[in-house]
């Protein structure tokens, strides 16, 4: 029997005196070691539960989630691909998890080999010359990249380069990153095909331009076919070209970003390189650069003299550290494992199948939900609503109805330039059979939207909760017990 009520908090299940773990107690109390005024006055309001209570509580919570292991999860721009289980086993090996970052270097050669090894693999797949694995996430990588660009211009006594050009299709992290790095954002409008408008770019470029941040393929899922010309314009202007690698899954094995003229890029290891998303993290945002920029990378870096690995902690040109220690090592390890399972013949099948799947979805939904830009897409497609056929229905309603039918929803209302956007990224790890079921569900929702929109407006009905009122939550925030 499971009489679990889904929204009861652990603290509400608390039974005074219960414990989930016991330690061999200290012989003397804290007062005997420390002055009274330095001690805590009252016990914290934590739940008092047994180990069994705790396991059951959190296990039941987990069952309220839609996840990749349980559901088709076509969340655009997030690359929800299968996370292989072997990597979990390897990442939990004691020898990896139980070493301290300051342990003597001879005792951590295995971990250093993994860091160094992943850097080498990333260099091979991107064509770039050097990598740092320190950043913890994509946005953290962007910040690192922007600082590298600034440091480079400063080093060249080119201190007035304080502007970063960003297309209007960009993720919100790009402009926020530019602001954090102390730069001014220059937004440029996309052309009618969703790509960078070269004339707009030319107008925006100036002696103040430090960097152009470009997502390739862009967030509409379209490849910037003028990328080489864009790179030339940027470089001729003395500026640098940054690639937001959030969408690298569309290019891996097909194109080396260095061949596009990219100077700096980040790779979300939790996207393209299959490390689990963990409900929001930890991820990792490796940053790669061309030779010219290598010295500006964060410290420390791992070096190898052929036999032994060691940490390099000094370089006057470096931007410094963007976090403590060397990076999210357990994530780095999983990404290393992933790339070791491919070679030059098989690497391209990742992008090929992700592109094939996205175009199959786009074509399969042509009549129900048209693509906003009607052309071949890369690894994801951006669809919109036919408002004439379903005037009262919004994309949000489609998303909620999909939850009812047993799918995670696509990314919605992004990119901002597409009205009622639905961004669908099926990933290569899904096959035609599961996509066909998804297409069936979407087609059903289309028919419901036309004939019985009420059904959608009331969705979801089959989830653990009905539709949530976000307004009341924001007006009167209740953020803790």
């Amino acid at each position, binding site marked *: 029997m499971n009489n679990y009520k889904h*929204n009861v*908090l652990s603290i509400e299940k608390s039974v005074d005196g219960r414990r*989930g*773990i*016991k*330690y061999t107690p200290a012989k003397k109390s804290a007062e005997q*070691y420390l002055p009274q005024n*330095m001690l805590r006055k009252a016990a914290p309001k934590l739940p*008092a539960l047994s180990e069994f209570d705790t*396991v059951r509580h959190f296990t039941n*919570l*987990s069952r309220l*989630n839609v*996840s*990749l292991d349980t559901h088709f999860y076509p969340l655009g721009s997030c690359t929800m691909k299968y*996370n292989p289980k072997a990597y*979990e086993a390897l990442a939990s*090996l004691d020898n*990896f*998890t139980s070493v*301290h970052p*300051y342990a003597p270097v001879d005792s*951590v050669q*295995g971990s250093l080999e993994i860091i160094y090894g992943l850097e080498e693999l990333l260099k091979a797949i991107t064509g770039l010359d050097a990598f740092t694995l320190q950043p913890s996430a994509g*946005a*953290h990588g962007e910040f690192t990249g922007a*600082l590298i660009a600034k440091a480079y211009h400063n080093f060249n006594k080119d201190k007035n380069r304080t502007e970063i050009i960003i297309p209007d299709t960009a993720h*919100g*992290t790009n402009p926020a990153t530019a*602001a*954090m790095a102390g730069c001014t954002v220059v937004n440029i409008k996309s052309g009618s095909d969703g790509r960078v408008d070269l004339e707009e770019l030319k107008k925006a470029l100036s002696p103040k331009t430090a960097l152009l941040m470009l997502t390739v393929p862009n967030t509409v899922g379209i*490849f910037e076919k003028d990328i080489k010309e864009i790179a030339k314009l940027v470089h001729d202007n003395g500026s640098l070209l940054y690639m937001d690698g959030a969408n690298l899954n569309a290019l891996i094995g097909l*194109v*080396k970003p260095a061949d596009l003229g990219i100077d700096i890029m980040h790779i979300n290891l939790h996207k393209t390189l299959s490390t689990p998303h*963990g*409900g*929001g*993290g*930890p991820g990792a945002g490796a940053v790669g650069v061309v030779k010219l920029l290598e010295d500006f990378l964060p410290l420390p870096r791992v070096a190898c003299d052929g036999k032994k690995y060691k940490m390099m902690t000094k370089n006057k040109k470096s931007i*410094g550290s963007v*976090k*403590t220690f060397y990076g*999210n*090592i357990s994530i780095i390890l999983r990404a290393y494992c992933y790339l070791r*399972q*491919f070679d030059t013949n098989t*690497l391209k099948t990742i992008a090929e*199948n992700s592109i094939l799947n996205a175009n199959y979805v786009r074509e399969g939904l042509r009549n129900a939900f048209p693509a906003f830009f009607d052309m*071949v897409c890369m690894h994801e497609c951006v669809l919109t609503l036919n408002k004439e056929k379903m005037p009262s229905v919004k994309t949000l309603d489609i998303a*909620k109805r999909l939850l009812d039918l047993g799918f*995670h929803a696509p990314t919605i209302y992004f990119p901002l330039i597409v009205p009622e956007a639905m961004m669908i990224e099926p990933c290569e790890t899904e*096959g*035609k059979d599961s996509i066909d079921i998804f297409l069936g569900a979407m087609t059903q929702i289309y028919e419901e939207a036309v004939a019985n929109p009420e059904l959608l407006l009331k969705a979801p009905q089959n989830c653990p*909760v*009905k*539709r949530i009122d*976000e307004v009341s*939550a*924001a007006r009167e925030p209740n953020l*803790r017990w």
Partner: protein
Amino acid sequence: MFNANTKTNQEEMLKKIGVSSIKDLLKDIPGDILYPQYNLPQALTEADLLRSVKTTAAKNKPLSNYIGAGIYEHFVPSAVNAISSRGEFLTAYTPYQAEASQGTLQAIYEYQSCICALFDMDVSNASHYDGATAMAEAVSAAARIKNKKKVLFTSALNPEYRDVLRTYFAGNDLVKFQEVKIKDGITDLEDLKANLADAAAFILPTPNFFGCIEDAEAISKIVKENGALLIAHVNPISLGVLATPGSYNADFAVAEGQSLGNAMNFGGPGLGIFTCKKEYVRYVPGRICGIAKDADGKRAFVLTLQAREQHIRRERASSNICSNQALCALNAAIYLTLLGPEGIKEVAQVNIENAHILKEKITSLEGYSLKFDKPFFNEFVIKCPVPAAKIIKAMAKKGISAGYDLGEVSKDMKDCLLICVTETKTAADLDNFLNALRGI
């Protein structure tokens, strides 16, 4: 390797799309750069991969660890990883679709609540990358709240944190850091007073990098009298017994939360704990989960106050953070639930006792003394008769990682060893340490 489509699938799909090959879908990519050669090693099967990476793992030789300095070795109860490795938690993403993510959302809410309870603070976010980046965000918030640039820290702030702060604010004009002197291992209150004029905030790590517990209450009073904000940095386990940031009126309290149910993992992932007073909630970066009601009026959980965040505010957002350390925060929530109010006190007491026992043992040896005679939690500085580096090397040969060489921080401290002892060490371990040290 992990592609699901068979050759037949692919043909059917291409036909439906109306092209004859996958290459037809790649026409936008300049032909001269399409399909390059990759210099990759031979692809490994799962069995080969397991063999190969286990061989690499064997090149790590974990020692009996007495280093802290920002990352701490604590016992992780088996239930923590058993729960958080469930695919439903591990392979979900940020809970954008709240109705389909109530598990993750309620867990975040419980994490926020446990952290607020432990810290005695009003608000916690869903986590940051690590303690140092959480501190950088608190500094940024304080500077904006006060509309002042000067932010103070002492030379007893973890050097890794100082590096990160410097990097975070090198590019912009938001903050200027100024260092306050220390005296006998803790903040020099006179120097603090002398520097506080026109400061936005003072960063107070306690215990500080040298393990010394600061007189937080006195410092807080001085900081507040001068109109500045107090940003505390604490060791979360220590709060089982030590006075809380809330009790000494901290405005922001941040921490490295790795010690709460997460392994050392060679320094990452960490868990950036970020808390503050209620009045500063709009300055909090990153995700926050709140309670809401669903259409039936039932309690539900949802990401809230999102208008602060980068996906809405774009260049006007105060931070670009998007991904956080949700799984590490889940580990912390499970850990604190297992320990409860009694367990957290018990483990903190064991840390204090073990550290004090080892300190007694070491200082009983000739030539070894306590560098700073101040109250400490689980970390302390020993002044050695020989350079610390030499001791570390000799102890490593005996399977012990003896501590952190403070010569890395200051030339004046080449003979100083920062030693950390947690509940993971038994009485026999501590005897071993002493015997090994005696032999040097």
